[in-house]
């Protein structure tokens, strides 16, 4: 169905999201921080990137920027945000993010959004 790169420093959320998307048939690549995320982005060339905005070493916004400006392959990006981070979400959209999802989110809703991005 597609390869998803998940960049999330909270391991419990990472596991929950990865399990759910794997169950839905996606190939998952997971990382705990932005630095590792950038490395995996270059080596794995995923179809979609799911990234938290607040990450260690490299922020989610830098990830969005890297996805949209450094890779030639058209990769979709969905950003995880929390309530009150509207400005950051706006910045992410300005940098080319395709969608965002606010925590707390339902995993089923996340699946719908991921599928929607990958079928466009």
């Amino acid at each position, binding site marked *: 169905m597609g390869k998803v790169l998940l960049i999330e420093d*909270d391991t*419990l*959320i990472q*596991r*929950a999201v990865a*399990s759910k998307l794997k169950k839905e048939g996606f190939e998952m690549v997971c990382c705990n921080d932005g630095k590792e995320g950038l490395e995996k982005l270059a080596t794995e060339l995923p179809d979609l990137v799911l990234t938290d905005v607040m990450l260690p070493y490299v922020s989610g916004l830098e990830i969005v920027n890297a996805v949209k400006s450094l890779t030639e392959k058209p990769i979709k990006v969905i950003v995880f945000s929390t309530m009150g981070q509207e400005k950051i979400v706006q910045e992410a959209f300005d940098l080319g993010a395709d969608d965002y999802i606010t*925590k707390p989110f339902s*995993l089923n809703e996340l699946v719908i959004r991921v599928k929607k991005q990958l079928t466009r």
Partner: protein
Amino acid sequence: MNSGAFFRLLSPEHLYFSAALFALLTLLLVGMIYLFLYIKKRRFRVKKSITGQLNDWISEQMTMEEDGSFITLPDFAPHFKKKYVRQFITDNLINFKKSVAGHLSDSVVRLYEHSGLKKDSEARMKSLRWHLRSRGIYELYMMQQRESLSDILDYTNSNNEYVRMEAQTAIIGFDGFKGLIFLNDLHYPLYEWQQIKLLEQLDAFNSEEMPHLPSWLRSANSYVVQFALKLTEVYQQFRVHGEVVQCLGSDNQKIRNQAIKTLGSIAHEDTVFILRQQYFTETIANQLEILRQTGINGTEEDIEFLKGRLYEEDDSLKLEAGRAIVAITPGHIATLKHIAANDPIIHSIANQIKYELTS
């Protein structure tokens, strides 16, 4: 040990004894550092193993998500008696719950309840130490433990600021507008920051009637009155216009200031007249607010009053009066320019307003 005794220890006759003492102290210090690092490392390993178990539990729980009825408890037993382990699990579950909604979030609450972590939170809430008490309230609220609501309500009037704030946040989180009932008996301050936080929390709920609003506006606690005025302003409670006007008679400058703003947002035909009467007894900050509200709610009838304010001693009042005149009727910029012909300060004000209008 005074310095004399210390130097005696260094004298030749005490040398062996001092060397042995220092060696012993050094050994003790090294031992303590080792023990500290050992405990830290052990705790790190335990936490890592628990995180792994929680991860497994999540994956397992998700495979059962479709029928929605299963809950499996991870085997934390070997470590579960340790307080720090239980606290670690609680913190992790709360963090996780903050991020997910739906069935998985419900399962996290069930895990918290079934594994006895809820009892820990309840015990913390009843602790004599304020930081534990406020933590307990936070945990019970985050885990949606409505049965603790009445206990939490008691803490909304705690003499400890942090316990009080946590309890108020929890009550509003649970009950929205109905939770505001704590204002009835609040004897302690409700600081500005907490007021902003509560208003933000209420924003997530559908607006409901606030039957106690008139009594909050008459409360003996000035913080409750200020907050009630903000509620009136935000939720456009026109029915308490009379009570808000009464607040203009308060000795508290902040209450009067908020009352002026609130009246501006629930204004009716007499409001500007009331504010104009108030103007002459007010502080400069409140006079500025009255001029702002007159600009928003005023009519041609108020222009003469505002023109008079152009000759106030304070320049900020002159500027605000000029802005209010133009806000009522933009064409009055010409009136300002006419007055400005004889007064250099009003001339500058007119230019400033013209710049504001065009920028």
